[in-house]
């Protein structure tokens, strides 16, 4: 009898608590987003567009205050805490296991698509394209591939593909599109979906997070813009997955409760 009394209370708890386990299936299968056909090709070496891209990096770096450069260095970390300014002091990712796991899974799925796109166009980083571009040492170092490491090229090559032939493993990971900008935009779009009250602040932070890559001199503006296009198109595809929508709903419950917002 005692057990039966507890049952309604238990059900109430279950109803209020989001499921801790997320779907095992990927939200986005590798190749589901047709990056090769849907992203613009990056400017070619020595083209006027490439010169404009280089010029924009130099201008952005010149116009950046030391404070803005410090923000770019802090933004090198692809981490939810980078959104704390937009969501306020109650946004503590360590205390939101569902939100953190959900957005980690989204970032992982998105990251594999970015890898395919990077391997398609094999664009060198800005600091390799123009010796006047100097990233802060640590930011440049984070784009390096360990000497001797062999990284498999994941893009579709061969007849009918716009991709370049697979080259040898580069010394620095490819520039186009920007993985950080993709991460920032995907995360910002989904946080704004969960907390529409902070939509403006979240998108501004997500876009500024991408801009940090140009400030740092580790990406061209076109890398960042294509990262945003890619992010938006990938979230549109993820939204079509029932598992994704269920996990998003669970994350929303946890996030809004933690922020003291109505469900």
């Amino acid at each position: 009898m005692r057990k039966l009394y507890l049952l309604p209370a238990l059900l109430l708890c279950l109803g209020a608590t989001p499921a801790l386990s997320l779907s095992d299936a990927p939200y986005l299968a590798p190749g589901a987003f047709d990056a090769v056909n849907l992203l613009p090709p990056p400017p070619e070496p020595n083209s006027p567009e490439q010169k404009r891209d280089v010029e924009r990096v130099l201008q952005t770096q010149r116009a950046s205050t030391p404070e803005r450069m410090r923000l770019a260095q802090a933004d090198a970390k692809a981490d939810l805490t980078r959104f704390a300014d937009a969501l306020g002091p109650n946004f503590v990712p360590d205390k939101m296991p569902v939100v953190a796991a959900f957005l980690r899974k989204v970032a992982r799925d998105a990251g594999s698509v970015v890898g395919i796109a990077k391997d398609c166009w094999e664009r060198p980083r800005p600091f390799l394209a123009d010796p006047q571009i100097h990233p802060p040492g640590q930011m440049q170092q984070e784009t390096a591939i360990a000497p001797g490491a062999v990284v498999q090229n994941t893009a579709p090559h061969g007849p009918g593909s716009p991709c370049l032939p697979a080259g040898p493993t580069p010394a620095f990971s490819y520039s186009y599109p920007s993985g950080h900008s993709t991460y920032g935009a995907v995360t910002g779009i989904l946080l704004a979906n969960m907390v529409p009250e902070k939509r403006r602040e979240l998108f501004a932070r997500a876009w500024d997070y991408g801009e940090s890559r140009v400030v740092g001199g580790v990406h061209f503006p076109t890398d960042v813009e294509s990262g945003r296009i890619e992010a938006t198109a990938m979230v549109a595809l993820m939204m079509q997955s029932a598992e994704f929508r269920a996990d998003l709903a669970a994350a929303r419950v946890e996030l809004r409760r933690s922020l003291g917002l109505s469900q």
Partner: protein
Amino acid sequence: MRKLALAPILLLCLAATPAASLSDKPYITATDVDFPGLLPPPPAEASPAGKRDLQTILDLEKNMTPERMAAIQRDLDQTVYTIAGPVLGPKFTKANFPLVGAFIDKVEKDGGVGVGPIKQKYKKLRPFQYSKDVQTPENIAKGAGGPTYPSGHSTSGAEVALILGMMVPEKREALYERGWEFGINRITSGAAYPSDFEGGHIAATLAVQAMMKNPEFRADFDAVKAEVRKGLGLS
């Protein structure tokens, strides 16, 4: 008898000619993609991003030449012939390639379920309406009546690059350069911000991605691709 003898020839002709009419159903509807949830809000004019947006226009206008202004005026026409003509050559006209024009018009119209409501959601002023420093020719200012975000010109430029880039991969790079330039000309004229341009590119990509899942779009795409490649003398 004469009529019957002609029938096989007639059938042969029909089989070889791509369907001259497009689907009368929309390629996408408002429920297919959450455009309002996915597109970023445009930056406020007084925010750092908004100020950068305006400064970019002023910098572009400083370098204005008569040739650039002539190109801007030519690009007021939003058809595929004006957008892709400089890449595909002087034969790429409505008379020679009628189907691709109707197809891109339909893509732009159906894709309007994305751009249209977002323009009304934010009702952002055009750059020349916001700042007296922006120099916009009178005819362009008169024609740009609706809200600025996202840019319809940039959306069209990207839709043409996306679709023709898949039909004519031999010219993919040049089609994207031209499609992007079409949007940049709009910025240089003071009728759109760079953030409108980016919003247009995002809207175009979302629309084309969703359309490619529609079998009717794909059937029309194949028919138009056949017209374009045959007309350009490509295999």
